[in-house]
């Protein structure tokens, strides 16, 4: 098993329902597995414009910043003990 820490910033934290969460995933898990785990735990909190319930991923532009890298594809393998920060990429005002 591998432990992944997640941090949700700004209004994303409000919509996910937490600022941080920890997930235990099987060794060799990918970013897709993490998204599925996030969906399983929090999708009931998230507005439909934010979360795709069928595909189990963020619909909107959400930046995932891992250990010294930006995670760009669901197939990206996760690193043991990685902390992943999520930012909603919306600006305005």
């Amino acid at each position, binding site marked *: 098993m591998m432990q992944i820490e997640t941090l949700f*910033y*700004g*209004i994303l934290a*409000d919509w996910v329902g937490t600022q941080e969460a920890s997930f235990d995933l099987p060794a060799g898990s990918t970013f897709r597995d993490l998204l599925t785990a996030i969906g399983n735990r929090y999708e009931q909190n998230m*507005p439909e*414009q*934010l979360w795709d319930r069928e595909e189990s991923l963020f*619909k*909107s*532009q959400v930046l995932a910043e891992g250990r010294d890298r930006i995670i760009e594809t669901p197939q990206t393998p996760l690193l043991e003990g990685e902390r992943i920060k999520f*930012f*909603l*990429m*919306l*600006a*305005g*005002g």
Partner: protein
Amino acid sequence: MNGYHGRFLKVDLSAGQTQDMPLAENDLKKFIGGASLAAKLIYDHVQSGMDPLAPESPLVFATGPFTATSIPMVSRYAVCGISPQTGYWGEATSGGVFPFRLKGAGYDGLFITGRADKPCCLVIDPESAEIRDASHLWGKDIYETQDVLKNELEDKGFSIACIGVAGEKLLTYAGIMNDAGRAAGRCGLGALMGSKNLKAIAVKGNLRPDAADGQKMNELAKGAAAAVRDNMLSVAFREYGTMMYMDMGMILGDAPGKYFTKNVYQVEAVTGQALRQAYTVENYACLGCPVGCGREIKDFKPDLDKVDGPEYETAVAFGPLCMNFDLESIIEANHLCNAHGLDTISAGVSIAYAMYLAEQGVLTKDKAGLDIKWGDGQVMLKLLNMIINQEGIGRVLARGTLKMAEEFGRDPDEAAQVKGLEMPMHEGRAFHGLAVSYATGPRGACHLKGDYYNIDLGAGIAEYGIMASERMVSAGKGGYAAKFQSFKDLFDALTLCKFAPYSPTQISQILSAITGWEYTPDDLLAAGDRSVNIKRAISNKLGLTRDGDKLPKVCLEPLTEGITAGQSPDMDLMLKDYYTSRSWDWNTGKPTKEKLNELGLTEVAEDLYS
């Protein structure tokens, strides 16, 4: 004529006369409406060296073809003229009910010249247009002005735009307010209105020009409503207002702090979420808008049961930019600016500069009359009152950062402005495309004509090939920034809210259905290009050269911490790219004669090169 009444109301306040001003169909086709049409109408009146506050200097209020239609997010108007703040082309927009009522009165806009011999107001409805005495309103704040005038008119159908004390006193960054606290804040157009002794404009009516294809327009309106509904930004704005971006802006290095010298700070106390937790907050929506990004705060203080809530720009300007994290003082500063009709951006930046100068030992307690320190919300409010009342050091702060630098013998590169208009609350060091937009924006430093942060955060315009790229890279940005600026300039011609998430194809289809004239996405972009160029030509006539297209050092010097540490946009590289893309002359800063002719601005070309 479909989509338009085909006329402005021409008002000569010196002569006390009003008359119809017919609009040429060809001008409407080319300039569409709003600020672009205003530029076309103003161009012929602009003389080199013209005093913005001279009686002959025109003040134009303009709606667009989308105003008062079933399309969501269109209840906006533009106010335009020579900016008393910059001395060049000036424009500001605002939303609310006023745009619907102005068009509802049977006019596409107002063209106002002259100066009344005493304070006056305009009262316009479908049956009449009158210039009335407003001496009794002079000196009143904008809320009281609107209340008193509405009571006198004994008709709740009127919507009012007016100036506060700032406009009356010709304060260089006075704005025009409408529908309680909605602001056309930038460029000092409230001073232009004040110079005409025009305190208020009351409009009423429900006249709507026919659409060429009403059924098609209504179908397209449904598609537009769906686009708004499915848009995450709309959801975020509805819930938290534009302040939803406070913390993200800080994380991205986009929200400036400590007079543009810092971008890492404790933002938690001044976010949209914090506002909702601390106060009872309700939404304010412009007429027909399903988003409602505006905020109204209930039970703010015992003597203020309801105040308009701050927007993102205001919250940063009176917040982190002054290192002030006291939400109450930010709300109060916003209320003061609204009540007296002041641009919150220029006011906040000027006060932050005063704090910077105090830290540098320039603005001492003896000189200022009070001890100015970073983060002191109460001192910030005192300074704001001194600006409004033109007292002591407030008289200097009221003239903006460029004049402040001059007054205190400082390097003008310390003044956070472009062409005299103070910098908005987005960082060119965080988004290089924004830096070149600021340098070249039609009205000076403007975050709305080219909000490039949206592009580089993923909201590209695929139809125009303007796509996200590395946000802190300068290479290749100038040309795209020019194209995007033209697209966003068009929103103020249509008078469409900048937050409307419509594609160029959607917009061109809507415009075609309303007017009956066929527009393609390329036609739209050409109209935006034409608009930017005629505004530029006005500023050129008033003396603008390439020297004005620059960012001050204080907004370019690399910061030492945060995600943008070490970053500084390559302005020369981007400007050259921008100039090439626009076909502007590198030596004179003017659009080339060939470019103007290509855009159908033949008369402008002849005039500018005569």
